């Protein structure tokens, strides 16, 4: 059984192909780059996706040395995400399904992150920190569903870092903004106090962004020290809420995924925290941590094997598709 997955919920366009045993046959990705100094423009990103998707699909098939006839199911991201971007993936999936007469499975994007992490990290029942430019959530399985134990009450952590980088005039042409900030932070030495905002198991970053933007304007501190202080603060917050979820759920595995999961400092902190509780830690490599088509293909396959498939009429996207909306019948209660 082979599944082809299409991911297009934000700035990444990805197509992946995976088989029943979790063998990765292709994982191709292209990224829409907004003009320097601005964020993702949903319509422009969707135009990028629409223009590139035929080639990305062909490239994935070529890499895997397969043709569409070999593919058994088509998976796509139903949501959450940016409407115009999601629609491109859904249209492409419908077109392939109709042309080649394949069943369709629309999947939940955050759950796809969790499931690819469980597969590659060989994890059974992790507490998951999902951190990216569009999402910040602590997810764990409980009573038949994935549930959000904590999340941002305003902007995602990746967005906070990106906007800081742009305000500082940093360029993300050569490396993702998070990586640029991480490299600067490695040379930071002085900690500048920044608000630390935790509310129960939730976090908030918008006040921190305002504060750091003001510090930036003062020009009293080096970019290295500001990057260091910002990273240390927001990551400490994320690790603390993950720790609380771990203690609360009494699980013994910690997984990090999403674009910000590429950050080595965040991974190191999570590892120390997990090990202090006797828990195992796993961080995905960037090709699988960042939005990708493979994770969509894999979740689609799991769900199809459990009897899920999405009739053509119901392949509408859902920008607000919640993690809790999905009945998880492929996992045992624990």
């Amino acid at each position: 059984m082979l599944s082809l997955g299409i991911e297009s919920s934000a700035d990444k366009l990805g197509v992946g192909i995976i088989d029943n045993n979790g063998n990765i046959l292709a994982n191709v990705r292209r990224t829409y780059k907004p003009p320097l100094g601005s964020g993702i423009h949903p319509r422009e990103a969707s135009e990028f996706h629409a223009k590139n998707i035929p080639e990305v699909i062909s490239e994935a098939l070529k890499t895997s040395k397969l043709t569409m006839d070999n593919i058994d199911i088509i998976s796509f991201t139903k949501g959450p995400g940016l409407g115009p971007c999601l629609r491109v993936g859904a249209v492409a999936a419908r077109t392939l399904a109709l042309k080649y007469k394949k069943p369709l499975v629309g999947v939940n994007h955050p759950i796809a992150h969790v499931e690819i992490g469980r597969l590659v990290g060989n994890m059974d029942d992790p507490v998951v920190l999902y951190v990216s430019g569009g999402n910040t959530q602590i997810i764990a399985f409980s009573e038949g569903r994935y549930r959000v134990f904590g999340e941002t009450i305003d902007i995602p952590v990746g967005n906070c870092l990106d906007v800081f980088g742009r305000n500082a005039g940093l360029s993300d042409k050569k490396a993702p903004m998070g990586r640029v900030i991480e490299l600067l932070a490695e040379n930071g030495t002085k900690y500048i106090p920044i608000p630390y905002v935790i509310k129960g198991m939730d976090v908030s970053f918008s006040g921190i962004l305002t504060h750091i933007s003001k510090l930036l304007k003062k020009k009293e501190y080096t970019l290295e020290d500001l990057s260091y202080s910002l990273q240390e603060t927001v990551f400490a917050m994320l690790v603390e809420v993950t720790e609380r979820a771990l203690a609360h759920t009494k699980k013994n595995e910690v997984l990090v995924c999403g674009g910000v999961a590429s950050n080595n400092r965040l991974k190191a902190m999570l590892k120390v925290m997990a090990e202090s509780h006797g828990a195992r830690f796993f961080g995905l490599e960037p090709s699988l941590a960042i939005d990708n088509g493979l994770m969509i293909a894999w979740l689609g396959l799991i769900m199809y094997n459990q009897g899920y498939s999405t009739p053509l009429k119901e392949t509408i996207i859902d920008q607000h598709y919640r993690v809790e909306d999905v009945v998880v019948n492929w996992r045992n209660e624990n």
Partner: protein
Amino acid sequence: MEQKTSYNYDFWGAEAELTKIKWFGLEAIKKVRISKKYRISEIDEMLRKKRTITEAKLLITAKKAKVQTPFVYDVDSKKRTIIMEFIDGTKVKDFLKSEEFDSKVKRKLMEEIGKKVGLLHANHLIHGDLTTSNILLRNKKLVFIDFGLGKFSNEIEDKAVDVLLMKKCLTSTHAEDNKEYFISFQKGYVSSYTKGDEILKRALKVEARGRHLKEEDVISEYIF
């Protein structure tokens, strides 16, 4: 002999070490905020010190707002330690999950909790971590604990977030009856706090803002 206790340990096990001790003959809890190796010492020191002091202040001030809390016997901000009264009670979480009591009694209790939270907010006290694990029942009276994430504030936003923490806790921990419980909570809240309506309106806005939700998805769960 010191005895480690599981008293409320599952929730705060992450942050502090709780030990049951005798303090001048009284049964007491020693709460020590432990150092975390994953964060830099500047942040670690700041958080542990700040939370120890804030918690002690809030525990004491809450009593003036007619909300029961453990008596604070001793605070040592250098050792990040609070020694406080041991509360021999049941977590509200366990009470709500118990099958011994019918839903009417449970709704009444949620209304009582709402009243107490209204009193805290009317006096500008923010709990910061309102969950059914952080409220105990002793001799049919509610006792609020764990104010470590709290603060003194008159901001509508801070109070709204407090209310939302309770709502989220009810959804995740008491999935079956969460909507009824939250309605009862709100009834109590607006009865003891004249500005309660305004806070609930903001809570809806905050809830719809951060999550993948729209206001119309959840407005029916509020009573304003």
